[in-house]
């Protein structure tokens, strides 16, 4: 899509001084009034999005409830979905006629360039093979390493040192901007890199007052990236669209404020789609409480995913499986009995009971060794780390094995 913003219609009155070199620019009483948006205006992207939405809704698309940038057209046979990221558009569907019809409609209104099959989207490289898709950000990693002057760094096997102890006192960093800039780029990199998610969530907790120690953590992550630049996520055909979730949490793992970390990952149709590592807001007394909190948190995401999939036309009555390695939380979820110790998380308890009872989710035990979200909550040994990564579907095609 070229010069997208010029297509938006403005709602507000905006005036501009005549630019230099305009024949009448010497007259201070003359101004332009905009009818259409222009690059540099605050409201341009919004105006463009509104304009595109109108065109899409005219051609029978409905805006999804799960995300305002997703447009869905569910015909009797044809299903077409339309994703908007400002001026990058993705169209997917099962009917080639409907897709080419949509393209023709859009081309009538906007000068859209058809880039053919999806290969590159927002810095994510997408490789298609007969087995499925492979998403990676190889070029982005290399650019990042080059900008950080770490292109010749010694590769590290895991993103964080296994004997990591967080320090709070050390010399303050000279340039906070530099730190924030690097971490910001790392956060974007987590789109296809579940392996660095935990490490990045750790370093991004110190965005406002980084110290030299934190910068060294970031450098360590960069060293790891150097050794695994081509790593990405594979998506293969499993022939179903079932949702499964895994969740985990550590207990009071943060040495600074003793808060716990929730980690979860979710699979749709056997492919990793959603993962997160997040420090909890509360300080918890027991590991069961932490795990329960994480369970609630994960359930929100599962319900959202279910809503999204039913929006896409894949509603299913089979409960979503939620794996968990903590017996206590499984018992609390299954039995509507309240104890003194669960009093303060009663709202969470009721919520989960309801979801389990109405068969939205189904809780399942998994042994700690196969617990996938360990990746998102703690520092692991190299062997365990790579074992879990391969299970997640995160592979490095350049690895010898």
């Amino acid at each position: 899509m070229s010069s997208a913003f010029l297509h938006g219609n403005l709602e507000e009155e905006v005036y501009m001084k005549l630019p230099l070199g305009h024949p009448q620019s010497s007259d201070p009483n003359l101004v332009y009034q905009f009818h259409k948006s222009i690059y540099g205006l605050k409201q341009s992207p919004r105006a463009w999005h509104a304009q595109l939405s109108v065109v899409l809704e005219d051609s029978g698309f409905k805006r999804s409830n799960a995300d305002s940038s997703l447009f869905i057209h569910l015909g009797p046979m044809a299903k077409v979905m339309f994703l908007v990221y400002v001026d990058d558009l993705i169209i997917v569907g099962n009917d080639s006629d409907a897709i080419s019809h949509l393209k023709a409609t859009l081309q009538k209104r906007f000068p859209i360039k058809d880039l053919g099959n999806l290969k590159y989207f927002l810095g994510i490289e997408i490789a298609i093979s007969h087995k499925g898709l492979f998403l990676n950000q190889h070029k982005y990693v290399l650019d990042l390493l080059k900008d950080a002057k770490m292109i010749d760094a010694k590769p590290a096997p895991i993103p964080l040192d296994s004997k990591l102890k967080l320090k709070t006192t050390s010399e303050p960093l000279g340039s906070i901007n530099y730190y924030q800039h690097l971490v910001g780029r790392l956060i974007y990199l987590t789109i296809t890199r579940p392996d660095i998610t935990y490490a990045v969530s750790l370093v991004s907790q110190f965005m406002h007052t980084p110290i030299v120690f934190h910068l060294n953590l970031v450098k360590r992550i960069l060293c790891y990236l150097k050794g695994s630049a081509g790593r990405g996520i594979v998506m293969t055909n499993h022939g179903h669209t079932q949702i499964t979730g895994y969740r985990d949490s550590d207990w009071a793992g943060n040495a600074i404020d003793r808060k716990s970390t929730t980690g979860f990952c979710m699979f749709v149709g056997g492919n990793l789609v959603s993962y997160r590592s997040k420090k909890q807001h509360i300080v918890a007394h027991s590991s069961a409480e932490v795990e329960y909190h994480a369970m609630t948190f994960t359930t929100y995401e599962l319900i959202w995913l279910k809503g999204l999939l039913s929006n896409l036309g894949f509603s299913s009555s089979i409960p979503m499986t939620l794996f968990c390695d903590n017996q206590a939380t499984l018992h609390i979820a299954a039995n509507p009995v309240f104890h003194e110790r669960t009093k303060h998380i009663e709202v969470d308890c009721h919520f989960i009971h309801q979801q389990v009872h109405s068969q939205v989710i189904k809780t399942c035990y998994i042994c700690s060794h196969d617990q996938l979200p360990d990746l998102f909550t703690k520092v692991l040994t190299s062997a365990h780390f790579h074992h879990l990564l391969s299970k997640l579907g995160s592979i490095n095609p350049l690895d010898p094995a």
Partner: protein
Amino acid sequence: MWIQELSPQLSQTLKMILLISLFSFLYNTLLSFSLPRILRVIQLINLILPITLLCHSLEGIQLITVLLQQGYKTLSPMLLDILCLIILHINISQLNILPFLLLSLMCMNHEIFRRQIHMMNGDKLCMMSYKPLIKIRHGVLFNFPKINMLWAVGGCIKSSSTQMGLLTDTRRVLWLRAILKVFGVDYKETFTPVVKMNIVRVLLSVVVNNRWLMC
């Protein structure tokens, strides 16, 4: 005067609190006062308090800036020198306020501005380069490599007709917005709904599992 008497007994912190409350009071009531009266108050403050302390509070800086913008025509030479001193004493940690003041000085008069720059070159602050990069139509572009900032300083406020005054007022508002800009924070940042990356992955998974087409 009572502050001066008290200050030996007061701790530094208490003094700061007093200062801040004093300035916030002054700042809030600034618009309701007539300008000469404020100037007198300021002169009084400057007599009582060390200027370095004035620069340690954000409200103090704001006050100075507002004064500079509103009273550049009526400032007495003595007050100008005081303001100049203030700029010389600005803490390095508050450097992002410096362009704010520079701009205000620039708005006052090109002549005075040059004098300030000249004076500052003799001080510790000259570790940054103040050399104008490019002369633009109504001002100059400054580069502050230490703090990673590129500032345009300008505004033509030479003529003092009322018509121009109105125009410069709106312009000053625009300039003030530009001044709050910090490197790395895109002040031109605009908002549009964008898609969640999770959805992209969900969609791709659905595509793979159903052998759909995508482009």
